[in-house]
Every structure is written in C-alpha cells, then in structure tokens.
C-alpha cells in the first residue's frame, strides 16, 4: 500500500513516486491523483525543479512532430511531448513496484500546474480516497 494525502491548499489528493526519464536518475515527484485524466503528465515546474530537465526540453518548437501531442483538457488544447518514463512506487512494507509507461511532458506554459497521475498508472492500483478522513491510498489490485 502507498499512502498519499490531501493537500490542505489544493484540497486534492496527492501521492509521491520516484520517476526516472531517459538520461536522468530517479527523483521523487508529487502527483495530483487525477481520475479524470487518461494519461499522466509531468508539468514544467516539476520537470525543471525535480527532474532537472533543461528549459529547452519544454519548448514545443524543439520537439519532433511524431513525439508531440495536442492534449484536450477542460480549458482547451495544450501541447505536450511523449516521453518514456519509469516509476518506482515504494509500498509501506518496503516492497517496490516498478512501472514503465509513456507519459507526457508539459510545455513551458504548463509551469503553474501540478503534475497529474492519470489512469495509465492508476489502473495498476486499488484506489481509496476519502477527504473526510484524509485517506489517500494506492493498494495492490
């Protein structure tokens, strides 16, 4: 089981996982659990300040067309880049669950947003969310 928490400020559930992308060592990154999203996305602030990616990596002009996607959200269309990612979820009992997924890297204009964990990762877990008790758990399915 992996425990997260409800952010007092955002009022949303978050969970931390270690995330590695090609050429970068794994780093702990907080993700907002987004049950309305099919895919996970690392937004620009976390890409810079947690994964230490260069700013140029978040410039859509530098992305190859085949790795660029236009993502439809409730507020409109945003561009993101498909990247291979390895996640390490450390359970409370010390066991490690490794998952590899193709996720999205947000462009620089996503800099004000938290990173999102969507169903590409959430499908691997039994999720329990209860804001009343502050419960956020990802358990084995």
């Amino acid at each position, binding site marked *: 089981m992996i425990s997260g928490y409800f952010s007092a400020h*955002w009022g949303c559930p978050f969970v*931390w996982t*270690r995330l590695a992308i090609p050429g970068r060592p794994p780093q702990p990154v907080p993700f907002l659990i987004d049950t309305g999203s099919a895919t996970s996305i690392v937004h620009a*602030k976390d890409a*810079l300040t947690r994964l230490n990616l260069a700013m140029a990596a978040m410039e859509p002009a530098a992305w190859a067309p085949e790795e660029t996607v236009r993502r439809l959200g409730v507020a409109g269309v945003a561009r993101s880049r498909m990247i291979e990612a390895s996640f*390490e979820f450390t359970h409370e009992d010390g066991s*490690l669950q490794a998952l590899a997924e193709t996720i999205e890297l*947000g462009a620089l204009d996503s800099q004000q947003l938290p990173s999102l964990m969507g169903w590409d990762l959430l499908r691997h877990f039994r999720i329990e969310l209860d804001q009343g008790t502050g419960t956020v758990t990802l358990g084995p399915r």
Partner: protein
Amino acid sequence: MVTRDVSEDLREREEAMATWRWWEEHYEEMLAQYPEKFVVIDKDREVIASFHCLRDLSDAMDAKGLVFGKDIDVEFITANLRLRP
C-alpha cells in the same frame, strides 16, 4: 514487485514530503507576500528569491550555481485553485 534496499528511497521521499508539508503549513503567509510567484527556499527554508516566470528562475539559479532538490526547493504560490491543464 522487486526487492532491494529501499531505505534510501524512503528517506529521500520523506525528506521531500517534509519540505512539501512545510510549504503547505506556510502557504497563507507566502501567498500574502509572494502571490502568483515561484518562490525559492534554501536548505534552511529561508526564502532566497521569487520570480513570476520559470525561465527567469532557471536562469538565476544557473547563474548562482544552485541545484534544484539539493540546494533549493521551489513552489508556485497561487490563490487560483481552478488551474486546469
């Protein structure tokens, strides 16, 4: 599932989460002083800089030779809870 010594992973995550909790506990006072800005704190959790733009922040930290996660931590301070991707 794989098995290896995850104690360092857990320590690293606990350290990161402790800093995150500190941001949450101080969010209101940060919001009063640095609304809609990226705020940079050092290892002693002292505010050392704030920026409106991530690019300016990156340039300034590069110039000072500071490393994200090692020397400094950053949070975007906003009253807007309706941010959407």
